[in-house]
């Protein structure tokens, strides 16, 4: 077997495992309908008397969707964990159009102490009515007690076709997480490699293989749609030597993730991702000694730096080999340092309206740049401080709605932030809490004991976890500088 053939086979198997993570597309599609139907029925039961036509219709719809899945799959298992919802082992995607339904169902199941619901063939609307009513009337006390209460209500209601089980803990999704993490790492490393290749090709004046970049962006979009946490986590890797490339990939990841929250279609996410990946391509024309200069930049250096947006525009014409020039990427490369009032750079002569893609990339770029340590920027700010600055300082010129959505995406303690808990443990923010009301209580990875002894790989905890008295088990008291503890945040995501 020749070396290239080996590479082909490896790539094939890599793709195979990647597609496993995405799960069954049929279930993903039907799962979306199910979530919306379940949320609709829950709302109807809460708002109207049971005999109301709206309740009947909503329960019929829910039964119909469930029956269709049962008929095709032969089984129906709904599993709700701290962050995810699975149907028959396929994790459902969280999108803008199912955001409310998704988070409500997570909260509902969590409050009732229910982790799994198995539905049997022949389920009736009445079964759903009893189950959803029981879910919405949980008793007080520990999660186990609340679960028992729901189970008893089901039994009393004569429901035999819906079986429930308690959740099996935060790390219930271990397998899934591991596979997702592996896929994310593969996507990330391929993205950095491809970006490096393309930017170096541009710098050397060689032809650019745009297909390679297409696959990279498609991979990032798929990953974000399937499981964004792992890929967002990898943006905490701040590679000093490879900053230009990792920064481009990070900005692409943040932009696509933000675009997803804003409800962009898959194709739009691809367009946005491509534009984001190339936003700094103009730097390929800036001399390396200026880019890597440690000392204060002089006027000439600054002129180079300030020229990179329009240089990006010119450089993107080099991406021949395609019928259509990358106009959207050109616009983003040109506009990403313009402020909402059109100040910033480059200077405008003709009237212009900033592209929303440029606004998104500007926020992603601003965040990643401000939180990354580089040769000329050793005093980086904490992610939380950067977000606060972006939100509060109008002189930064970011679009306030996009910043708000970005904070919504990352949480006020963005992924990768080192925090100190009131238990004196150190923790790294792993992901925003899926419960949008718990913006200050992300999922964190505890990376030390209470005496500060740093541990690897640590363990994940949900900061919304409460004790029997209803008090939180852990609360963030402040953010910290990872360097002080010799912690490399990226390691915990790799």
């Amino acid at each position, binding site marked *: 077997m020749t070396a290239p053939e080996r*590479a082909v086979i490896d*790539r*094939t198997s890599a*793709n195979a495992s990647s597609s496993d993570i995405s799960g*069954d597309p*049929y279930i*993903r599609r039907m799962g979306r309908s199910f979530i919306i139907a379940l949320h609709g029925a829950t709302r109807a039961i809460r708002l109207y008397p049971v005999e109301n036509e709206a309740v009947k219709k909503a329960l019929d719809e829910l039964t119909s969707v469930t029956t269709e899945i049962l008929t095709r799959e032969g089984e129906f298992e709904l599993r709700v964990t701290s962050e995810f919802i699975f149907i028959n082992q396929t994790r459902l995607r969280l999108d803008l159009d199912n955001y409310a339904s998704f988070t409500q169902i997570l909260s509902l199941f969590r409050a009732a102490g229910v982790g799994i619901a198995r539905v049997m063939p022949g389920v009736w609307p009445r079964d759903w009515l009893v189950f959803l009513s029981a879910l919405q009337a949980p008793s007080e006390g520990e999660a186990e007690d609340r679960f028992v209460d729901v189970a008893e209500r089901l039994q009393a209601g004569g429901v035999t076709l819906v079986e429930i089980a308690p959740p099996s803990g935060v790390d219930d999704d271990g397998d899934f997480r591991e596979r997702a993490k592996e896929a994310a790492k593969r996507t*990330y490393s*391929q*993205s950095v*490699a491809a970006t490096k*290749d393309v930017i170096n090709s541009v710098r050397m004046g060689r032809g650019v293989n745009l*297909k390679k970049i*297409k*696959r*990279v962006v498609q991979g990032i979009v798929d990953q974000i749609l399937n499981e964004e946490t792992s890929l967002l986590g990898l943006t905490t890797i*701040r*590679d000093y030597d490879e900053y230009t490339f990792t920064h481009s990939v990070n900005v692409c990841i943040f932009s696509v993730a933000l675009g997803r929250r804003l*409800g962009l279609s*898959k*194709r739009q996410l691809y367009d946005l991702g491509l534009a984001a990946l190339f936003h700094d391509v103009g730097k390929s024309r800036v001399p390396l000694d200026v880019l890597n200069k440690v000392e204060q930049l002089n006027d000439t250096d600054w002129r180079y730096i300030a020229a990179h947006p*329009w240089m990006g525009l*010119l450089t993107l*014409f080099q991406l021949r080999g395609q019928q*259509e020039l990358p*106009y959207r990427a050109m*616009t983003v490369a040109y506009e990403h340092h313009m402020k909402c009032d059109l100040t910033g750079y*480059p200077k405008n*002569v*003709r009237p212009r*309206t900033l592209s*929303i893609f440029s606004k998104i990339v500007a926020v992603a770029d601003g965040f990643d740049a401000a939180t990354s340590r580089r040769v000329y920027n050793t005093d*980086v700010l*904490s992610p*939380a401080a950067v977000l606060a600055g972006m939100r509060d300082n109008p002189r930064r010129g970011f679009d306030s*709605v996009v910043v708000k959505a970005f*904070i919504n995406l990352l949480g*006020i303690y963005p992924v990768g932030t080192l925090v100190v808990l009131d238990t004196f443990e*150190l923790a790294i923010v792993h992901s925003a809490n899926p419960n*949008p*009301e718990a*913006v*200050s209580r992300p999922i964190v990875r505890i990376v030390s004991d209470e*005496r*500060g*002894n740093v*541990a*690897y790989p640590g363990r994940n905890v949900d900061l919304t976890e409460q004790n029997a008295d209803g008090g939180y088990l852990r609360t963030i008291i402040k*953010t*910290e*500088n*990872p*360097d*002080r*503890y*010799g*912690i*490399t945040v990226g*390691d915990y995501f*790799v």
Partner: protein
Amino acid sequence: MLVKAARAHQLYLHNNPTYLRALEIARAAFAPIWEVTDELVFDVTETELRWYGDAVLRESEKATDNIPWMMYKDGIRELRFLKEFEHHELVPLLDILQRARKVSPEEDDLLTMLWEQEFSYLRYRYIDLSTDQAAPIDKAGFRGGEAGTQALQESAPPIDSTLASVVKLEDFDSTLYFLEDTEVEYLREEVRKEYEVDMRRNVVAMLLDTYETQGDNSVREEIAALLDTLMLHILSSGEFKTAAFLLRETAQTSERAPGITPDQKDQLVRIRERLSEPDVLAQILQSLDEASQLPDQEDLNELFDQLRVRALATVFSWLSKAQTPRLRVLLENAAARLAMANTAELVKLIGSSDREVSREAIRRAGAVRATAAVAALAKLTTDPDVPVRLAAVQALGEIGSPGALQFLERTIDDAHRDVRVATARAIAAKAHRPALPKIEAAIQGKLAKDANLTEKMAFFEAFGTLCGDPGIKLLDGVLNSRGLFGKKEDPELRACAAMALGRVGSEAAIATLRRASTEKDVLVRNAVNRALRGGAA
């Protein structure tokens, strides 16, 4: 069956019974397979689709039209159809195969199309031929190493780091981070606008802004070259409005860019010059004539407005060549605007050695009533070529200025009947009284002998229009008088006289007509009745 369905998808409209039948057959072909398995997996080779090693589809060559090669060349190595594929996703797949056949290699590839479609019942494996093996990410590959083990209390330096901070929860009122409905609506609107905006126009504006703000010669040279390239992309995508924008804004930049040198200015101006060249413009018009979709009139006008006046000749020569009727209409209208705005060029083109161009210029000169063209047109009234003389006479008649009509008096006795008829009609239409003696001479002269009914009618009507009551006597003589042996005039002449009297229209003329109302000759009687009804008016 799949190949046949793909072929039918390509060839027939989607309500065509042959196409629907092909789909039905393809769907039916899956049914026996689903009785034994839930998925159908094919290996893809360069020329075959294989099922368990046996070729189920074999093509003789690696042609872009062949399904195995289309897939293979894009890296697809395995296709997996799931049960019910045929009911839900057969048509989308056929659509994609058809699109993939048509696209150039540089556009969206088959993999991208499949990726975008998000099939539920079709899966595929592919190899990425273009992506090198990326270095795996591991901790050692990046900066930093294993996390250290330091006691919190021992290691903490003074809290002066920018990274250490207390996040005030009151600063982050959680409700703030739910987007309001108005904010969601704003974002949706922004995304909608993003996909409506003309990106090419935007890029043109960015290039020209850069040109105006960057004085460096090499940058300006590069931008001028890119604008040239961009113009081709814009034209090939049929964005004529954007092309017009590029020309207009480039002209503006060439006037106002700070410190622009004559050479730089020339370079910018050359874009418009080149596009106005006959060869280049002819290529554009040719491609339009072959295009499936034509631009809006307004867009085409905008572009033509930006061209050099010499483009007019090319447009004129294309009016007769265009095969697409709608394009002819578009060009007609655009040419009219150009002609109106550039009469000097129009006059010049009247004398063009290219007969098509000259004839079109003559026609346009008349249509836009270009008085400046009278002298050039008058010159052509003596051209040996009858169609040219005829066109010139018609144009002069349309212009209708005293000067133009004066020249028409000379063509009343042109050697060719069509020219004479056109002259008479033009004179009648403009009621050009100075021509009356010559018209009268014509109807009293050889007209009676040599002319056909059309010519007689044109001249008599012209006479009736110009003569007024003083001419009734002559007309009455033709219509009602008898000759030496009591014989009346030729019925055609009498009918013409009746129509001419109708044109006079006075009471005396009506009375003269009434006297002939009982005429036995059908031709005359009909003409009289028509004239009495005002039909000759």
